[in-house]
């Protein structure tokens, strides 16, 4: 299992590692980190329709949680013996597909036509990661906390591209926009370097990656323009978990 985890990290970041000469002993200077993650995601748009028997999101897209993929580039702005403070920018992608609806004159609902909701989640994140357990005691665990300002760029589409809706008064509303929010995250990273320190040094020597971590975290967020009465809720209703790999370089 240990070898599998380390091999996964190396396969993603360092195909050439095995071909290189023997590593040096001194660690390279740290600059920041990069991480990518996968997370099952479902926005809580239906929170507006608590009394509805057929709320629009679940009716259209169902209860599945398609995966959101995200990456964060960070710069380490404060490093101590205890841990590291990273400030970074993240971006990702998420999309869900479903079927539209048609209600005939007798009230029978039929399904058809494809429709989708796409979100590009952007974030500015501040992360504090405790490196002390591994650096001091060689315990391969690094807990962390993160706060983030979120900007979800979203777009809905139907058969003919981006959706529009015309009100009874003739106003046209285009189904795309951006919604701000915030998030808090608690996570735990497994330091993969502990399982093969030689290979870890080799990785640092070859491509400057000081540390590789497998992480798991949970996030609670709110994305509704900070409580605006004219915004929907694009954050999940639950603590959303995510897992991924983090590289310190």
């Amino acid at each position, binding site marked *: 299992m240990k070898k599998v985890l380390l091999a996964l990290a190396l396969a993603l970041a360092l195909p050439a590692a095995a071909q290189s000469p023997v590593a040096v002993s001194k660690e390279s200077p740290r600059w920041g980190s990069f991480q990518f993650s996968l997370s099952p995601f479902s926005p809580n748009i239906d929170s507006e329709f608590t009394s509805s028997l057929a709320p629009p999101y679940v009716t259209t897209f169902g209860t599945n949680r398609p995966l959101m993929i995200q990456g964060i580039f960070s710069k380490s702005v404060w490093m101590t013996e205890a841990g590291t403070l990273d400030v970074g920018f993240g971006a990702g992608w998420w999309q869900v597909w479903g079927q539209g609806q048609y209600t005939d004159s007798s009230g029978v609902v039929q399904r058809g036509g*494809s429709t989708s*909701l796409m979100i590009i989640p952007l974030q500015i994140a501040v992360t504090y990661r405790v490196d002390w357990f591994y650096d001091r005691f060689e315990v391969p665990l690094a807990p962390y906390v993160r706060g983030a300002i979120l900007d979800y760029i979203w777009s809905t589409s139907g058969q*003919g591209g981006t959706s529009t809706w015309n009100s009874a008064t003739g106003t046209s509303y285009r189904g*795309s*926009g951006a919604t701000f929010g915030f998030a808090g995250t608690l996570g735990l990273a497994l330091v993969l370097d502990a399982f093969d320190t030689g290979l870890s040094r080799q990785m640092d020597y070859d491509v400057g990656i000081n540390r590789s971590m497998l992480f798991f975290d949970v996030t609670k967020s709110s994305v509704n*323009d900070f409580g*605006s009465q*004219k915004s929907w809720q694009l954050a999940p209703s639950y603590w959303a978990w995510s897992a991924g790999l983090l590289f310190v370089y």
Partner: protein
Amino acid sequence: MLRRATLLLCLLPGAALAQVTTPGATSALVTTQGVSGLANQAECASTTSTSNWTISSSVSPVIANGDRYRLGAATQSTGCATSGTVPAGISQDVTATGSTQAVNGVFVSAIASTASVGSCTQANDVPIVLCVYYLPGGSTTNWQLASQGTFVFQLAIPPKPTIGGVTPGDSQLSVSVAAGTATATETATRSVTYKVTCTPSSGGGSPSIGGPSNVGTVVCGGLTNSIPYTVTAQASSQAGNLGAVSDVTGPNASTTPLPFLNFWQIYKNQGGVEEGGCSTGGAGTLGPALALLGLLAARRRRS
């Protein structure tokens, strides 16, 4: 003396090879379906279907000498002749005007018979070789193979496809088409494409054709909402052999296009508060504020 003889022995095979002229390339385009190097069943059997040959010869003929080209064909197993008696031509020999030359109007049926294709309704494709022989001064002595190329009589008929399902849309139907199973008389062929025909079940309007496209979802567009349609699919091979028409799907609810509402329209119809655009309320200032902060940070770093 022995060393010289040994050296000569070593060089002889190379000298012999150097004298062999590699034939040029030839291709043929059947004018009716327009795919180079292919003829379909109908073209194989037709007495009027012709092809245009493009010859790139390995020799440079001299018109004044009366040099000619002879067009031939052979089975893939025997290949073009390179020695002995020059083979009979598909048509009359043509005056050789250059090392690159086009010859039009070569009958496809003549190619088939010369290459011993046999029946044009057989289930298997028949690859053959096109041959161009150079006849110096028009003589059948001292001839040589000047050019050759491959050609396929694509005789296999694609199998009858199946319709996996139909999803209605606004003025369209998305038809899921799956390839049929090849039988003894229906050999699956490469590069099969599919057309879908959507026909209004009750008078009015003309059928709509979707495709051609690969196996998967084929869309019939431009349909009239609320009218049930019947849907069929048909495969076509690369050379244009049409397969059997699939079983009919519909008319039913799934083959009736309707003006379906998309998610945004459903949301707004139910009274959703989101209005679209870039953030609302106080958050609207957040984007520009963050951009300004980023700009200031960048300027500070530069200074």
